[in-house]
C-alpha cells in the first residue's frame, strides 16, 4: 500500500502538469480541471490496489479525469435547466462529448505550453503568475507554496482564486501567443521561472528544504520550456544559468553562513550539472541570438570552469558584464562589471570605476555598492576606508546572512590592523 502511494505520488509529480493542462483545455476552467484531476487520483487510490497498476498511469488518470469532467457538465446542464443564472458559468465549462482521440493528441502535442503562457500572462500580476505556475505546472499544493514564500496560507489561496477568476472573467486566452507577441510573452515566462529559482536559491530565510525544492522546481520548469520550444536561445540560457548556479548549492553555505565564490570548496560543486550547463550555453550561443540569460550563463560558465579562483578568466567576465550592462543597465550589473575590471585590469582601475558609478549618489543607500567598494578597498590595503564602507553596507542590509558576512570582514580587518 505504501508502495502504491509512492507510485501514485510519483505519477502525480511527473504527470500532473501535463494532465491539468489538458483538462483546462477540455473544460475551459482551472477549477474544474483541478477538481477532476483530484477526483481521478482519488479513484486511482481505490482501483489500482484492486486491479493493479495500469500500463500507462498518466493516461489512465487523464481518461478518468476526462470522464469526471463529462459528469460535471451533465450535472451542471441539469442544474442549468432550473437556473438560467448559471448560463455564463456553464458557457465556459462546456465539455466536448468526444473522448480524447489520438488525433486530438497530435493536434495538441502538449497543452503545457498554453498553460505556461496563460499562467504568465502580463494581465495577471507577477506574484500571482508565480503562484499559479507552481500550483498548476509544478503541482505544488497551496500550503507548500505558501510555506516556500513565507506567506500565510489564506493570502496565497486568495491570490490563486483571484488569478483564476481573472483568467475566466477577463477571457485571458488559453493559447500559445501569435509569433509577433511571442518574444515578449516568452520573456515573461522566463522571468517567472527565474523568479521561482531565485526565491529558492538566494533567499536565506525560511525552511531551507522547501526553498531547495523551489530551485529544483524552477529547473524542471526550465527543462519543460526548453523541451517544448527547443530553439529559443534565451530559454536555453536560462536553464544553463540555473543549472550552473545550482551546481554550487552545496558549497554556498557552511554552518548557515554564506560562503562567497572565491572561498568556496570547489570539490563540492556538482560536476554533472556543470557539464550540462556548459553544453547548454554552447547550444544557446550557437543560435546567435544573444540575450541577458545567455550572458549571465556564460559568466557562470567561466566561473564553473575555473578549478581555483586564481584561474578565473576575469577579462572575459568583464567583457561579458560590459555587454550585459548594455542590455540590462542595472546597478548590480554595473557593480559586477567594476569588480571584474578590478580583478582583470587592476584593483585601482576597478576602484575608479566604482567611484564613477557612485559619483551620482544614486547608489548611496544600496548596500551592495558599499560592500563591493569595501571589498576592493580591503584588497588594495586601504583598511580604514574599507571598514567605513563595510559599516555603511552593514547599516543598509536587513539580511542576517549578509550581516554576518560583513561583520566577519570587519573583524578580519581590525585583527589585521592590530597585527600591524
Amino acid at each position, binding site marked *: 500500500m505504501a508502495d502504491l502511494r509512492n507510485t501514485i505520488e510519483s505519477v502525480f509529480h511527473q504527470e500532473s502538469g501535463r494532465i491539468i493542462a489538458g483538462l483546462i483545455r477540455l473544460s475551459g476552467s482551472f477549477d474544474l480541471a483541478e477538481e477532476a484531476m483530484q477526483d481521478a487520483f482519488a479513484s486511482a487510490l481505490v482501483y489500482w490496489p484492486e486491479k493493479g497498476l495500469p500500463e500507462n498511469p498518466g493516461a489512465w488518470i487523464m481518461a478518468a479525469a476526462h470522464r469526471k469532467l463529462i459528469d460535471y457538465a451533465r450535472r451542471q446542464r441539469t442544474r442549468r435547466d432550473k*437556473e*438560467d*443564472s*448559471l448560463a*455564463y458559468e456553464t458557457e465556459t465549462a462546456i465539455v466536448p462529448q468526444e473522448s480524447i482521440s489520438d488525433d486530438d493528441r497530435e493536434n495538441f502535442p502538449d497543452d503545457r505550453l498554453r498553460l505556461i503562457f496563460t499562467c504568465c*500572462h*502580463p*494581465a*495577471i*500580476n507577477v506574484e*500571482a503568475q508565480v503562484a499559479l505556475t507552481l500550483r498548476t505546472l509544478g503541482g505544488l499544493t497551496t500550503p507548500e507554496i505558501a510555506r516556500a514564500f513565507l506567506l500565510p496560507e489564506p493570502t496565497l489561496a486568495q491570490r490563486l482564486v*483571484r488569478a483564476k*477568476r*481573472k483568467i475566466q*472573467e*477577463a*477571457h*485571458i*486566452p488559453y493559447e500559445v*501567443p501569435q509569433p509577433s*507577441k511571442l518574444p*515578449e510573452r516568452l520573456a515573461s515566462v522566463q522571468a517567472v521561472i527565474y523568479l521561482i529559482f531565485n526565491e529558492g536559491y538566494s533567499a536565506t530565510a525560511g525552511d531551507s528544504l522547501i526553498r531547495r525544492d523551489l530551485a529544483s522546481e524552477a529547473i524542471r520548469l526550465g527543462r519543460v520550456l526548453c523541451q517544448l520550444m527547443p530553439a529559443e536561445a534565451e530559454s536555453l540560457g536560462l536553464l544553463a544559468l540555473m543549472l550552473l548556479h545550482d551546481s554550487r548549492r552545496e558549497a554556498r553555505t557552511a554552518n548557515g553562513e554564506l560562503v562567497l565564490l572565491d572561498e568556496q570548496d570547489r570539490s563540492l560543486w556538482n560536476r554533472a550539472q556543470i557539464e550540462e550547463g556548459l553544453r547548454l550555453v554552447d547550444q544557446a550561443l550557437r543560435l546567435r541570438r544573444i540575450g541577458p540569460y545567455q550572458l549571465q550563463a556564460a559568466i557562470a560558465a567561466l566561473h564553473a570552469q575555473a578549478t581555483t579562483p586564481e584561474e578565473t578568466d576575469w577579462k572575459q567576465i568583464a567583457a561579458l558584464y560590459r555587454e550585459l550592462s548594455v542590455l540590462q543597465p542595472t546597478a548590480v550589473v554595473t557593480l559586477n562589471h567594476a569588480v571584474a575590471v578590478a580583478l582583470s585590469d587592476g584593483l585601482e582601475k576597478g576602484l575608479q570605476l566604482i567611484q564613477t558609478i557612485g559619483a551620482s549618489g544614486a547608489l548611496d543607500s544600496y548596500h551592495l555598492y558599499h560592500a563591493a567598494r569595501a571589498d576592493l578597498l580591503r584588497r588594495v590595503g586601504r583598511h580604514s576606508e574599507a571598514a567605513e564602507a563595510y559599516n555603511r553596507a552593514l547599516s543598509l542590509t536587513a539580511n542576517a546572512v549578509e550581516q554576518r558576512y560583513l561583520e566577519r570582514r570587519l573583524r578580519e580587518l581590525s585583527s589585521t590592523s592590530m597585527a600591524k
Partner: protein
Amino acid sequence: MRYMMLIYKDETAEPPSPEESRRRVDGVWTVIDEATRRGVLQGCEPLAPTSTATTIRTQNGKALITDGPFAETKEQLAGYYIMDCKDLDEALEWAAKIPTCGGPNGCIEVRPLPGLPAREEVIAEAGASSHNG
C-alpha cells in the same frame, strides 16, 4: 445633448440579500424601460468588477500591461470605446492603438462587459458581478 451617467459603487460592500438584489434589478429595468419608451436611451451596461481590469500604457511602442485598474489619481475618465473582441489579447491590441495609451499622461483600462442582468433574474450570487447598469 447626449450625456453619460457613470456609475460608482463600493465594491467591498456586503453583497445584497436576494430580495434586495432582485429589487435593484427591477429598478434597473424600470429605468431602462422608461428611458427606452421616451427614446432617450442610447445604451447601458454594467462593467465587470475591477478585479477583472487590465491597464495598458505604451512607451516607445512597447506595451506596459498591468493587472488591475491603474490610473493615477490625476488621470480622469476621458472617454470610452466598446469593442467586441475574441479575447483579452485582442482587446489589449486594440487598446494599444488608442492614442491616449501612448501619451505621457494617460492609459487605457480594459474591462469586460458581462451583459445586462436578465429582467426577471434571481441572482444566485448577488454582488459577484455588478448588475446596477
